[in-house]
């Protein structure tokens, strides 16, 4: 008989549905087959011209109908596709979900299709006047909506029948984990019997690429794209921009079991800690990341000895991987060298706003399947950060618990602790 309340007397939160889309494919089956085969989804960019750009590769999702229609349309389709898979698996209603929606999605801007259409839409030779005239005459609600941060969640709320005001959030690279945290906390507060948490990011635009490049954050290993993302390697040279989505259906364990749902895993704990050191650099002593891991363990009611596997943030930037090793060594001590830790980003790249959700989905599948997806491209280990990264080849393992890290560029750190079975 499972316990329905956790160590703090709160409802235990179960996962009853998972959906995922990445550059590796649509749905859990395609993704899991590729992940465990050590296959990379990183490929040359074809969506926009890359002449004179120092990075010309990405993990874009190029196979959906909206892939060429701009960041807003693609982010919506990614979120919708993952949510359909998750809700169907949960057995709940697809058009009357009946719980709140928490969506992690990227900041959006007017797409170039629309900017150029405005630019070319009139005859006035005075460009700024022409843009104003065309925009006023067109007065397009459809175009306006694509530039609104809350629009995607609004559409999803109507599509799936979620309740209350749909929450759109952005905590940078921690966003997907934050969406899950908000869902968990809503259930723990007793506000709802189910929550839909989604991370979706279809914003691998030219601007995003150039901005991250200007921060020296991206890999420029363009020649062999599938080898570019190499977390924890000595020759790692940056992350690979990517797209994707994941959705989780969360329910109190008691309610889920009462309706006969299959329990895919337990969301045991969430922890977060802001890093105030610098706009893009992490605090040299790693204290914010350390505090986030400790907070998640405390929230889960687990000691550091009870974590069987770590799903790393593992971006493949020189800074992150060093900092992640430092933080984890501080929390886990000498045992860190023996805990398997792998980075899904070695295969899918960094899906930014979606990463925390996608990696939580993969963490749950890792425990359920008893197979750890590898860190691929681990050909030149960095001797300064000795870790068991499950190099290059998947590994069978009996895993009861996972820690999944999301350490955001702008200082937002969120960690999730998940378990295979209820206690």
């Amino acid at each position: 008989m499972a316990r329905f309340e956790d160590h703090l007397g709160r409802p235990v939160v179960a996962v009853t549905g998972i959906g995922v889309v990445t550059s590796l494919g649509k749905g859990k089956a395609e993704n899991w087959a590729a992940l465990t085969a050590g296959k990379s989804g990183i490929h040359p960019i074809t969506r926009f011209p890359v002449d004179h750009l120092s990075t010309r590769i990405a993990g874009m999702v190029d196979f959906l109908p909206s892939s060429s229609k701009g960041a807003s349309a693609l982010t919506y389709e990614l979120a919708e596709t993952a949510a359909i898979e998750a809700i169907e698996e949960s057995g709940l209603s697809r058009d009357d979900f009946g719980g709140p929606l928490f969506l992690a999605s990227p900041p959006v801007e007017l797409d170039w299709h629309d900017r150029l259409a405005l630019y070319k839409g009139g005859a006035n030779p005075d460009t700024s006047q022409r843009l104003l005239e065309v925009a006023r005459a067109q007065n397009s609600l459809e175009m306006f909506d694509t530039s609104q941060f809350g629009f995607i969640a609004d559409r999803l709320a109507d599509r799936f029948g979620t309740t209350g005001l749909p929450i759109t959030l952005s905590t940078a690279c921690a966003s997907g984990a934050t969406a899950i945290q908000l869902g968990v906390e809503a259930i723990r507060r007793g506000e709802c019997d189910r929550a839909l948490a989604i991370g979706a990011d279809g914003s691998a635009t030219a601007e995003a690429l150039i901005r991250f490049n200007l921060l020296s954050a991206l890999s420029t290993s363009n020649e062999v794209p599938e080898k570019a993302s190499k977390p924890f390697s000595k020759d790692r040279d940056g992350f690979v921009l990517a797209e994707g989505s994941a959705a989780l259906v969360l329910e109190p364990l008691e309610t889920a079991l009462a309706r006969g749902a299959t329990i895919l895993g337990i969301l045991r704990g969430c922890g977060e800690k802001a890093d105030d050191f610098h706009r893009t650099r992490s605090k040299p002593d790693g204290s914010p990341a350390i505090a986030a891991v400790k907070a998640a363990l405390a929230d889960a009611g687990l000691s550091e000895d009870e974590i069987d596997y770590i799903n790393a943030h593992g971006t493949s930037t020189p800074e992150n991987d060093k900092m992640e090793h430092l933080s984890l060594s501080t929390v886990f001590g000498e045992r860190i060298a023996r805990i398997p830790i792998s980075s899904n980003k070695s295969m899918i790249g960094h899906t930014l706003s979606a990463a925390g959700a996608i990696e939580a989905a993969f963490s749950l599948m890792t425990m359920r399947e008893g197979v750890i997806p590898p860190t691929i491209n681990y050909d030149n280990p960095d001797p300064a950060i000795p870790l068991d990264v499950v190099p290059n080849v998947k590994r069978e393992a009996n895993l009861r618990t996972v820690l999944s890290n999301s350490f955001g560029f702008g200082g937002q750190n969120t960690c999730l602790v998940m378990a295979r079975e209820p206690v």
Partner: protein
Amino acid sequence: MLLDAAGLPQNDLLAVSGASGAHAATAAERAALDARPNIAPRAFATLTGHLKEAQFPFTVALAALAVANKAPYPAFDAGNEKPFEEIPDQVLATTVGYHRFEGVALVRAA
């Protein structure tokens, strides 16, 4: 629907409205408030402009100030807002976005 869900009192009720002035949304809010003759709205955006993300927190703060000070606001627009002279022990705060989303909060004396 929101007003039904808020569990509003039956007696006369002061409301601080964050209405933006956007034609369709503000007309809809006004119709909903007008359908309840016990509500006396006070819409402040003509005085402040629309504060976007801060609009609703500011609205709730104004409602709380009225409750804390035991004093109603005068009509901001006497042509459109009816008088309210009682000591408000509860004040409704409303926000209807200029394009999407809406919410209300009822602030009560502790």
